[in-house]
Each structure stands twice: as structure tokens, then as C-alpha cells.
């Protein structure tokens, strides 16, 4: 019954997260959630997920207030530990966000976060299921495959380094939706709301070696 072995994942909530829905889905793959409250929680976590719904600025203010900014950079860039940012949790991993005025992000990935309207030519929220084309292996998804995932966002990732882009969505003028650097993964879509494909990505993430 190896499937029954329970594991723990640490979750750092930024902004108005969707923690209860994430918790429900993680419990389906026998994973318990521990909430990160301190700098040590972030450094010590084997696997860290940063979900989040809400505004870029508010999320960054929260991280600054708690001295989590440098810790997260250290975790992702120096310690190279498994870290997954979802939606807003992915957006704050870039250098600058343009939501409600310029705001500095974590700068784990080079690039900006821009409105769908300015960067993709879409004037309304991107809500619903859409195709993601993977140009590289990503969290168990094979290179060159296309996977349906669920989106709900007004801002998009505009990374500078194309070699960090692992998946794109063709909606509007198209945009990057999956980034990877070391063991840090940033996804604009919601794996926790994307049925089997998303569940497999989460499983794969939790099985990444944390050394």
C-alpha cells in the first residue's frame, strides 16, 4: 500500500489564497498541508507550494513585512529546493509586476508581469480550460505534448529568458504559462483544478528529490 504513505507539503499563503481547495486536492494524493509561518518553515520545507489569488502588490507587501523575500530567493536560487508557484504565487517570482503600479517581485525569474490586455491583446479575464503546449519536459509532462488546464487570471508572465519557458498558451497573442529554473516551477494555470493532468503534475512535484 505504498500509495497510502502520507507526506507533508509546506504551503506559503500569499494574498487571498485558495487554500481549502488546494488542501482538498492534496489530500486526494495522501499529502498533508503544513502552513509556513516563519523564515525557518520556508528554509526547512522539503517541498514548498505558493498558491495565491489576489493582487501582486499586496502579496509582495506581505512577503516583505515577514522578511520572506530574501528567504525565498535563497531557497530557490542558492539552496535550489523544490518550490512551486501557482497563479499569483508564480507571478511574484518575476522581477516586476505592473498590477496597480510598478512593484518589485522576487526576481527568481527575469521578466515582468503584465496585463492580459497589454501583452496578449485580451480585454477580459482569462477564465476556463485552455491548451498548454509544453516545449520541454515539465513536472512529468513530456516534451511537445499538449495538456488541458484551468486558468483564471488577468495578468500574465512575461519572462525574459526564453530558455526558462517550458509551456505556453496560445490564447490571444499567446503567453508563457510554465517556467522552470533549478527546482523552482512557476505555473499560471491551476494544477489543483485541472483534473488528472494537474494531479499528476502535483504528484510529480512532490516526488522531486529535495537535496
Amino acid at each position: 500500500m505504498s500509495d497510502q504513505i502520507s507526506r507533508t507539503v509546506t504551503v506559503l499563503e500569499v494574498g487571498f489564497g485558495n487554500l481549502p481547495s488546494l488542501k482538498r486536492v492534496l489530500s486526494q494524493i495522501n499529502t498533508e498541508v503544513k502552513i509556513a509561518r516563519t523564515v525557518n518553515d520556508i528554509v526547512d520545507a522539503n517541498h514548498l507550494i505558493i498558491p495565491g489569488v489576489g493582487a501582486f502588490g499586496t502579496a509582495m507587501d506581505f512577503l516583505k513585512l515577514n522578511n520572506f523575500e530574501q528567504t525565498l530567493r535563497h531557497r530557490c536560487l542558492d539552496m535550489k529546493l523544490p518550490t512551486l508557484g501557482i497563479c499569483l504565487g508564480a507571478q511574484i517570482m518575476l522581477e516586476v509586476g505592473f498590477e496597480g503600479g510598478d512593484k518589485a517581485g522576487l526576481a527568481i525569474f527575469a521578466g515582468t508581469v503584465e496585463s492580459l490586455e497589454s501583452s496578449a491583446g485580451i480585454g477580459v479575464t482569462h477564465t476556463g480550460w485552455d491548451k498548454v503546449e509544453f516545449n520541454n519536459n515539465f513536472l512529468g509532462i513530456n516534451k511537445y505534448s499538449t495538456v488541458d488546464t484551468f486558468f483564471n487570471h488577468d495578468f500574465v508572465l512575461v519572462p525574459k529568458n526564453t530558455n526558462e519557458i517550458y509551456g505556453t498558451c496560445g490564447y490571444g497573442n499567446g503567453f508563457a504559462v510554465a517556467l522552470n529554473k533549478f527546482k523552482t516551477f512557476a505555473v499560471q494555470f491551476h494544477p489543483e483544478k485541472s483534473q488528472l493532468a494537474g494531479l499528476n503534475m502535483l504528484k510529480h512535484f512532490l516526488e522531486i528529490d529535495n537535496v
Partner: protein
Amino acid sequence: MYKRIIGVVLVDNGIVCRTRNFVSDYLYTDAFIDTNFFDEIVFIDVSKNRSNETLNLFFTTIEKLMSKSQLPMAIGGSISSINDILRYREFGADRYIINQTSSTSDELVKNAIEKFGKSSIISGVDHWQEFTFENGEKTETKLNERVKNILNNSGSEILLNSVALDGSLTGFDLKVVQQISDSFKIPIIISGGVGRWTHALNAIEIENVKGICTSNIYHLTTSTILSWRKQIIENGGNVREL
């Protein structure tokens, strides 16, 4: 982007039901409901006398039906405060439907958007043909006037509920829906009247219709939706293949 087939689960005192013209019409057991064939699930508490007890029963029903699901989920039913939203958030909801048929809820929508973001809010508007529908009756307010008035202060999608066709299975009110789609640039999801896959196909062919809702027990309990998908795709409709 795919158009969505949205399963709406109406819950009356903790029991799943069907409604006709917005009145609970038929109670049903949740034992046979399978939510996995949908693209999104909506739970609406239609209990008349709401209390902590009905809320707990509502929650238990959601827990049961979502325990094996990884679908996005929205909750609605008499949201009248930010606290209601915070409570529904604990149920695992991602989006919240606020009934914005009347201007009395404009303030709540504004506050909710500020707090939770536009993409977390759906504005529900009830209508009877081309007029809005409030407090059990058709009003003299035109639906398109109301939609126009909330455009700058609405959730990221508007849910149009046809009370006249609710439970009829005779098809959506496409004349009204087409008019709204032609007049405004806002994503809409529609509810009320779907009975067959052809109704769904005709509806999603309208540009701004991003999703169609069904709350018919028959659609929730068998693999009907799976066969709809097949038929819709074979006939050129843009829905997800499962």
C-alpha cells in the same frame, strides 16, 4: 479557450434538488451524482430558511460530491456579505456568485472585488425574457439596461439566469442571450432551459457565451454529459474532450 459545460448542484436543506421557475420541484439523492464530467461545478444553496444547520448540511453535501474531484468550484446562494464569502471560501470555493439583479448589491460586489479580485466574482442576473426578475416577479427593468449599468462594477463573468425557462428542458433563451452578447464585451455564462446537447451547442456558438449551466438531475447522475461532449465536438463545438 474551450467553452465550459458547468454542472450546477442546487441544495435545499442539504438535499440535492431540481427547480422549476426557481422553486424546488424535486428532491434527489446525491448518491448517484458524478461531477467529474463537467468543466466546473457550481453549488447553490436554495434553502428558504437559512441557518447554521442548513449551512452545515450544504457543506456536507459539497464535501461528499467534491471528495474525488479536482474541478474548479463556485458557490452561490444568498451571498449578502463579505463574511458569507469568507465562509464559502472555507468550503473550498474558488469563485463566488453574487446576485446582482438589483442595484442593492452593487456595493457588496465592489467591496468583494476589492478584497478578492474581479476574477473571483461572478455577477448573477435573474431575468424573465428581456426583463429582470426580482422577489418572485418580472420587473419593468430591461435586462440589457441592467447589464449595461453593472459593466464597470461586475465580476469577471455575468451569469444570466432565465427564470422563465428554469427546469423546462426546452432550450436556452437564445434571443435574449444573443442580444446581450452582441451589445457588450463581457464573458457570460447562461442558465435555464437546457435539455439536449443541441441546446448546448447552439448556445456556445454565441461569441461571448463562455459556458452553459445545467442543474438537471438527469444530467448530473448519468454519463449524459460525456455523450453531449462527443456530439458537440463531432458537430464542431469547442468543448474539452475527456
